[in-house]
């Protein structure tokens, strides 16, 4: 998998996790102060998403062909149009990514993969928090 493909997956993972957390509020309603806690989670996630977008925007801007359309590429990541756009950009931006990252390209891919798996963990944690939390409680006691 190329660097740009990994970056695209991370972008969608961020969007999906945040969306998941917002929609998954009902699951937390049994908890005291769940809103406060969950909002803090979502805020942290959004902050990380913005940081990642900025980083990616910087990288894409240095591949000047997509300079003017960076905004289009980094918004509405959950739409079908975005997916098409990103696929098209992937084929054309792929070599440019390698060109810019040069020696760091492999490292970029590796770190991107780690980021993706962390986001997946966060998502799966929310999918069944009760099981997850009970396991945690059991381990606490």
């Amino acid at each position, binding site marked *: 998998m190329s660097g740009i493909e990994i970056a695209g997956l991370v972008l969608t993972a961020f969007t999906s996790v945040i969306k998941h957390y917002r929609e998954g509020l009902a699951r937390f309603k049994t908890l005291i102060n769940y809103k406060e806690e969950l909002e803090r*989670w979502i805020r942290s996630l959004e902050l990380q998403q913005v940081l990642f977008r900025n980083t990616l925007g910087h990288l894409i801007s240095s591949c000047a062909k997509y300079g003017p359309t960076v905004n289009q590429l980094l918004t509405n990541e959950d739409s079908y149009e975005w997916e098409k756009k990103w696929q098209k950009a992937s084929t054309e931006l792929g*070599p440019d990514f390698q060109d*810019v990252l040069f020696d760091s390209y492999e490292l970029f891919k590796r*770190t991107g993969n780690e980021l993706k798996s962390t986001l997946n963990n966060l998502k799966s944690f929310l999918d069944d928090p009760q099981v997850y939390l009970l396991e945690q409680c059991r381990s*606490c006691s």
Partner: protein
Amino acid sequence: MQKLQLTTLVQNGISAWFHRVRVSFSEHRPKLFEDLERENNELSKIVMDAVELKRYRWGGNAAPVYKEIRANAINLYEAIERSCIECQTKHQGDPHLAYIRLEARLADLTSFPSIDNERPSEKGVHVFRVILQKSASEPPFSVEVFRRNTNEDADSISSAATNDSDVGNAGPAQARNMSPRVTFQNAQPVAPAPNHPSPDESNSFKAFCPLLDIMNTLNEKPAEYLLGYLLDWSDCPHGFYSPRSNDFDMQSPKMMQLSQLYQCHGLDAVPAPDNQSKVLGRRARIRLALKLALAVLQLHGSQWLPERLSSEEVHLLCCDEPEQLQPLYCATFTSSSNHHATGDSIYQLVKILIELLNVQRFEDIDPPGTASGNTQPMEEMEKLRRLSSKTNVWHLGPQYKEALDNCLDFCKRQKSERDLNEDKITQDFHNDVLVHLIQVYRRHCSPHSRKGKKERKNGQEEVIVNAVQGPNLKKVTTPDSANAVAALSGAMTVAAPAKEAMENKITPLEGYLRYKNLSCLKYAL
């Protein structure tokens, strides 16, 4: 009572459970998010550093290369000039003309079969395309000129020449004595390429003028071989070579001024002298801009550059593909020629870059009669700045705009052509202007661009060199175009043998560029 106790116990239990859950939530959060933050920060650092470094990586150390090309260009000019003037004085003929392509290309010596047989070099040579014309009424001929730099080479060529009884002058001793005489000599041994006849030795070598010699030889045998050497006063012979693949019709190249192309209607079709419709499209303009910027870097201080670089002075060699337009400068050699460069090529370059952006002559964009048409340097700069920010500015992309702005900054900082003699300024100009233009060129004319995957040229498929990919440098050729080479549509045509390219071997030139960390110059040269 028991019920109450039970209720209390249950309530305590529930609250304890909730408490545990909350604690575990809070405890767990930092761990998951710490990972996320750490990885995100790492990624950010990797990208920021790489983007920052990219500028320097692309820049390489280009200044010495430009210096070498400039020295060669000056030397070539002097050699041809001396020869032409001597000829005219003797024969009272019309002034000779020579057009030089406004940039040199770096060629692999393996593309010169006759030289390759003698001594293959690991280093590329800088080749100038020159179009020679005895007079304005005579047909022009195209040759490529390269210079062999080592004394050893000069000796071998000169000693070979002395074996020819017809030549008899300008032997090695004479060449080493810094003789000002410029003599066209038969290159011996001449090893013609397969399927091409060898040059007729009885032909032309008694003639005095090298231009006549070359043209006579071309008339006789317009084929692929080394025509001969032009020995000059600096002990370094110039080899004249009839190129393997002409990018135009050698017998009747058609010239036109750049300003002529601006005429008619804006961005598209304009009539050419041959009454064929020519399009000065985006790619053609980007290509011209790159070549002109290269010309300033490579030829500044030499007399090849016009006194005032302008669209009237830049000639274009018309060909079927508008994107293959070659910018040329015509030098007329007369005994009274007294050419002095004005030293404002960078300023003139800005004007041409603006012209190419608007596809209009500068005078038409900003007529002299308007209020802004004054000549105060600072106001002039401001005018240029204003014009460069006008409409159409994004038409050639943000990188083009950046190159233009940086070029303007050079002018503003009072950096003139003479300052380019300093390595640091040359390097800065390369990094700030050339690199951006190269990137624009790559974007629109490289295989990754929509239109530029394959370009047709003289019926042969020519593949444009892929982007400088660093580790992927080997991927520059594809099997179907292996013989057509890693080429930058004329700016850089490296003839690599088909077999070698098929096997993805690195050519000596690529090795040299890699070694010098000058991969980017594959585009520039």
